[in-house]
């Protein structure tokens, strides 16, 4: 059956927003619990940095206090990167997609969104933050499970998966970038207790702590953590793992549905995968991890653009919906 270009785009973005929401909930949760400095304070500002929201945040807040940052990322409807905004956009896409997705997928997103809106900051004082984040994470995972169990496996499924893996790869590079950026410049701290706990935080944010320990039972260094998150072939959030998925999805999508377009997108994925496999982590760090991650993000953006051109009809029509990278 033909898939409407606009539906494909909505499916892609619904998946991205849900994935993004889960990642943000993870980051807020792990941050509150583990990311403390020597005085036991949480550096909430790093979350603002992670999302590159400094400008918008400071236009409405003087200082990155816990309350301000938590509210900004959970309930601020003006902030397009807040959980409530992401859920609104996921729901808007799901609403358009109701003829295409299962009733259960729609209902769960609808109820999830409505509950979050009803909460409106009430009861999310810091002591409750972890509980709320856990709830959000579970709702996102429920979405993933319902989707896995009820979403019909035709073209739509591939666009869903593409959205999910592109977003996930992007989130992992951002997480790694900000931590590396803020942690590495202090050579004195490398290997200290604090440094270790910060790197543990990075792994926990990506649900990778135990997996990392299994691979590296004894050592933990910025290099091994970065390498694990970038290149590990078994870790579901590693960049290489995600890009391999994207590669496979595009290939199968094109062959199974004999879609005419999409070759440019596939080329871009090949390029990225080639680049990722070309250098070991040590070399990457030596050349500059930040620049490297920036490059990966730009390439993921490029893949999204090509997918839009090939399948969402973006060459022919201006889409009124503006969904953001």
């Amino acid at each position: 059956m033909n898939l409407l270009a606009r539906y494909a785009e909505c499916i892609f973005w619904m998946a991205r927003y849900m994935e993004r929401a889960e990642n943000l909930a993870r980051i807020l949760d792990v941050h509150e619990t583990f990311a403390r400095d020597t005085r036991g304070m949480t550096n909430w500002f790093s979350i603002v940095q992670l999302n590159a929201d400094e400008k918008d945040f400071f236009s409405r807040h003087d200082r990155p206090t816990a309350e301000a940052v938590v509210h900004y990322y959970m309930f601020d409807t003006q902030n397009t990167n807040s959980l409530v905004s992401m859920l609104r956009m996921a729901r808007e896409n799901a609403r358009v997609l109701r003829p295409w997705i299962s009733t259960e997928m729609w209902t769960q997103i609808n109820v999830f969104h409505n509950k979050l809106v009803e909460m409106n900051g009430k009861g999310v004082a810091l002591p409750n933050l972890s509980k709320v984040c856990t709830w959000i994470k579970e709702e996102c995972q429920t979405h993933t499970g319902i989707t896995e169990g009820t979403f019909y496996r035709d073209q739509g499924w591939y666009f869903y998966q593409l959205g999910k893996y592109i977003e996930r790869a992007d989130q992992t590079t951002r997480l790694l970038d900000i931590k590396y950026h803020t942690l590495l410049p202090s050579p004195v701290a490398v290997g200290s207790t604090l440094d270790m706990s910060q790197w543990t935080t990075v792994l926990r944010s990506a649900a990778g702590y135990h997996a990392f320990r299994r691979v590296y039972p004894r050592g933990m260094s910025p290099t091994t953590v970065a390498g694990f998150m970038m290149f590990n072939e078994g870790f579901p959030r590693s960049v290489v793992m995600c890009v391999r998925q994207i590669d496979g999805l595009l290939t199968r999508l094109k062959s199974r549905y004999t879609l005419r377009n999409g070759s440019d997108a596939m080329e871009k994925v090949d390029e990225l995968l080639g680049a990722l496999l070309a250098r070991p982590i040590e070399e990457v760090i030596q050349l500059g991890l930040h620049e490297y991650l920036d490059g990966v993000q730009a390439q993921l953006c490029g893949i999204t653009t090509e997918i839009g051109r090939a399948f969402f009809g973006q060459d022919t029509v201006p889409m009124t919906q503006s969904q953001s990278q």
Partner: protein
Amino acid sequence: MSVPEGKATDLLTNYDPGLYYDELFGGRDYPAEHSALIRQRLAGLNFGDLLRRSQDAERELYNLGITFLVYSNKDAVDRILPFDIIPRVISAKEWAHLEAGITQRVTALNLFLHDIYHDQKILKDGVIPADLVLGNGCFRPQMVGLDVPFDTYIHIMGTDLVRDREGTFRVLEDNGRVPSGVSYVVENRHMMQRVFPDLMQDIGIRPVDNYGHKLLDAMMEIAPQDVADPQVVLLSPGSYNSAYFEHIFLAREMGVPLVEGRDLVVENDRVYMKTTNGLARVDSIYRRIDDAFLDPKAFNPDSMLGVPGIMEAYRKGNVALANAIGTGVADDKAIYCYVPRMIKYYLDQEAIIPNVDTRICREADALQYTLDNLDKLVVKPVGEAGGYGITIGPRASKEELAECRAKLLADPSNYISQPVVDLSVCPTVTDDGIDPRHVDLRPFAITGKNTWVLPGGLTRVALKKGTLIVNSSQGGGSKDTWVLQDGVLQDGAQEGSAS
């Protein structure tokens, strides 16, 4: 069902429908036998349980997003259509009568549309004044001489029925453009199955959930004949339309894409939709956009919702549209009065379901009658929609009546008059217990090659005490409508006996 001590044991004991016909109890002299078992089961419930179920149902509707958008100031709010869990019950015999009457009416209206867009015999024979049709804003000259498959113009029809004090069903209005509400018919049934399975058990209620299949069948039938496997789509104005839920519902039920104008293009007088694999042919369109907005090239040039060039593709026979263009002239208030004569003219039959007794003031004796009984009648201008310019005699002041009289005399052909109809009532859950509330009924008919009437319809209920206005914008809600199967156990006295 256990009953708390100290409470009345029978929920319906104190129920009093007053002078009105009651949908569950029947008329004063004709108690409804067919609903005896349902009454008996309802009477045995306690009110707290009923309220709880009612709240469960409304919460569920909200969670499922079975909502419509209400625009207030600048905000759009999602609202559910309030749902009353006491069903409205129609016997097999009553339904057979309604089904025949609706089919007859759709048939006559389609014959009328074909006639006025071809030979215009009914106008030439003076049965209907030509100016009423040709001067009507909904008459589309683009349709003149155009043939449509099976001569069907109104594929989807919603007929608004009311029941008077004597229990007679009457047609209040025909909806032959883009009638809505059928999604609630099906969803209300699903809701009842969830919250009230014990009430429904062994009643023998005719199912309503095959509406989507029937609609798809009709959409396939009317597609261009040279297409082997027609692509059907539903064309919606988009997610900000207040009836968007229904569009989703119907697209899902038919298993077809829900498209918007921006998803479609016309090339070489053929309609295509934009897919992940480029353009794909579209053969049959269930459009939920009014004529005026459908094609900026043919109608309203400012429309952003439509598809430029689609009218020409339609004229060439390359795409089917349901409903056809130009059906609005058949469900106009002025034309409504002539439908019984139309039925006589085309089918040589009397109308099976009568109109509300309507007088056409352009006719001398009707004008005289209206003037003589002004304080008892409702006077409506024919050109206006949405209740504008209506004078309700029994509630009007002397000055208003005088003003109405003057207008009637100045331009009689702009007016019709009707008696005030005492809509029937149905037991309804209210804050004060079970109370009678006024209801109407909108059954839906689908016509491709033949006409099929969905057994049931949308029962709208005026939730405000005493009011006759059932519209959702005025505090109206809806009920599940049960059409009973013929010959199934329906006698309360026999419940529990071996079967």
